[in-house]
């Protein structure tokens, strides 16, 4: 059904073939793929994965080590140096209170990056757990949980998240909860589908005959087998979630000033767009670069563990990677 298809659309969009900077990853279907080409592709995917994983690790390191990396106290006001344009002393300029923007951006990465990762881990774990239970147990529980997820999916875009964040009040944790509330059904559906597919496999019956308990079956047989697609989905979600979280902060529903967070920094400096554009552009670029790094990493992970790639490696005649 189309609805289901497009609702997962997010994952599929990404699966649609843009391997940014990676012109070599796709080829015309009619080409007969030589073993050599396959190996080149495989190595290429691996190299890409390593490069972007290192970049993402660097971003993470900045977020974790933020307080050590700041040249200035990100919260110290220095009105004599307010609204200075970027210069060698203040690389990204200063805001209206004379606070060093680069330091604020670095500290802001704690809210923006770490909370995003928390959010993605949360929805992936909760969604997967629900999905596996649904797929494994079936019956009434499955129906109830899946109808519940239908209801959550029936709210468009950020509408429900906005309302939840509004009711719960501002704060990063509340914003994370609001986005988690609308995002888990995607994982539940994917995990459920994958679990159902695994359930019919002979190896499971064999494992059961060999005396595996249900917990063993789920944790050491099903989960490892369905982890790939879920991991890809989660990796591809990081960028989007980061933008949505920053969006909520921008609207005043996430991080509360004076806490440094990229979205709320851009929001509080909005009136300065004319006089001091760097106060907005600098955090904007920070979001852009971070989101891009994680999107590239997501693509690289997908290219690396995508089943179609694996199929290719085995020399199956695959149709065009779309």
């Amino acid at each position, binding site marked *: 059904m189309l609805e289901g298809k497009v609702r997962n659309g997010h994952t599929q969009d990404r699966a649609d073939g843009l391997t940014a900077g990676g*012109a070599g990853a796709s080829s015309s279907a009619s080409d007969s793929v030589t073993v050599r080409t396959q190996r080149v592709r495989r190595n290429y995917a691996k190299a890409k994965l390593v490069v972007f994983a290192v970049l993402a690790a660097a971003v993470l390191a900045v977020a974790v080590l933020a307080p050590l990396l700041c040249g200035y106290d990100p919260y110290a006001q220095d009105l004599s140096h307010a609204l200075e344009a970027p210069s060698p002393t203040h690389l990204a300029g200063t805001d209206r209170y004379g606070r060093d923007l680069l330091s604020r951006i670095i500290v802001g990465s704690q809210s923006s990056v770490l909370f995003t990762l928390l959010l993605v881990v949360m929805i992936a774990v909760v969604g997967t757990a629900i999905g596996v239970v649904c797929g494994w147990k079936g019956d009434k529980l499955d129906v109830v949980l899946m109808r519940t997820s239908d209801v959550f999916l*029936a709210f468009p875009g950020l509408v429900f998240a*906005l309302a939840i964040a509004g009711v719960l009040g501002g704060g990063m944790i509340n914003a994370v909860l609001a986005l988690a509330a609308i995002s888990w059904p995607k994982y539940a559906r994917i995990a459920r589908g994958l679990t159902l597919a695994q359930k019919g496999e002979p190896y499971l019956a064999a494992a059961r005959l060999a005396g595996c308990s249900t917990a063993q079956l789920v944790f050491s047989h099903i989960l490892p087998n369905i982890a790939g697609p879920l991991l890809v989905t989660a990796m591809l979600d990081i960028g989007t979630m980061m933008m949505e979280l*920053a969006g909520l902060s921008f609207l005043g529903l996430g991080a509360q000033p004076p806490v440094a967070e990229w979205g709320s920094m851009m929001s509080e400096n909005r009136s300065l767009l004319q006089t001091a554009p760097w106060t907005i552009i600098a955090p904007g670029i920070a979001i852009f670069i971070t989101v891009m790094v994680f999107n590239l990493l997501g693509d690289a992970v997908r290219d690396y563990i995508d089943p179609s790639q694996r199929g290719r490696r085995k020399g199956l005649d695959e149709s065009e990677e779309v």
Partner: protein
Amino acid sequence: MRRYVIRRLLQLIPILIGITLLSFGMMHLAGGDAVTALLENQGVAVTQEVIDAKKHELGLDQPFMVQYLNWFRGLVTGNMGTSFVTGKDVFQTFASKLPATILLTLTSIIATVVVALPLGIVAATRQNKFVDYLIRVLSFVGNSLPNFFVALLLIFVFAIVLGWLPVISANIGKTGVAAISWAGLVLPTATLAIAMASKYTRQIRATVLDELSKPYVEGARARGVSESRILTKSVLKSVMIMLVTLLALSIGDLLGGTAIVETIFQWDGVGKLAVDSIVMRDYPMIQAYVVWMAIIYVMVNLAADLLYHYLDPRVRLGGDE
């Protein structure tokens, strides 16, 4: 087809019940806070007795299901209470703001198609050439930019540096109806279209590539049919089916996703109304927004599904149990 439609309509019932329960339950989450917000907005000194009296007056001391049913009756009859802030009828306020959001949604969709369709086709036909590479990089960049940053960049470039376009989009006349300035529509439309076009360009490219690799294209080529004819006569058709349904589905996402853009450009639609209501803790207004957006979204999705079934005979014949 008719059986399919009926089945889909029946499936809608539990969803609608769920939507209303969730929207209503949210208000409960806010609990006494909502009453406090109401009283504060009215300028009443808040004491426990006043809160209790008001709760009783609003029926908030009744059991959950009773309250829900009362509220549901109001929802069906269009009587969803009055705003805590303005005192105006909530449903009418929502309905009066909706056309502005619909207008913005439609212009964004048109702009998206105008940009994404040619770019996607060009990228696919020049696969792995420079143009393809460039288009893919652009679409990747577009996908990594949060829309509020895009909005502020556009304002900076086109309204402040170049001075071509106004920053604030709609002027609200004395009658309360937004007089739409067409120049003001450009930047919010562009903001929404950039994100969507980035997404669709990829999808169109992928669909065209997929289609071009099918045997019938090979056959047409072998018979000497020109590439442009293959593209316009055959490939474009299947792209259109995908595009029409995807766009129909995007309408819902756009309607719900305009909150940030409307707020930045002061576009007087439901998204801005929602954000304003949240800031003012105007719970009846938030509730109306959530429940109606969900209902609209579900309806649009259903329409899109039906359209897809209608347009694509394969689905129509195969999927019609």
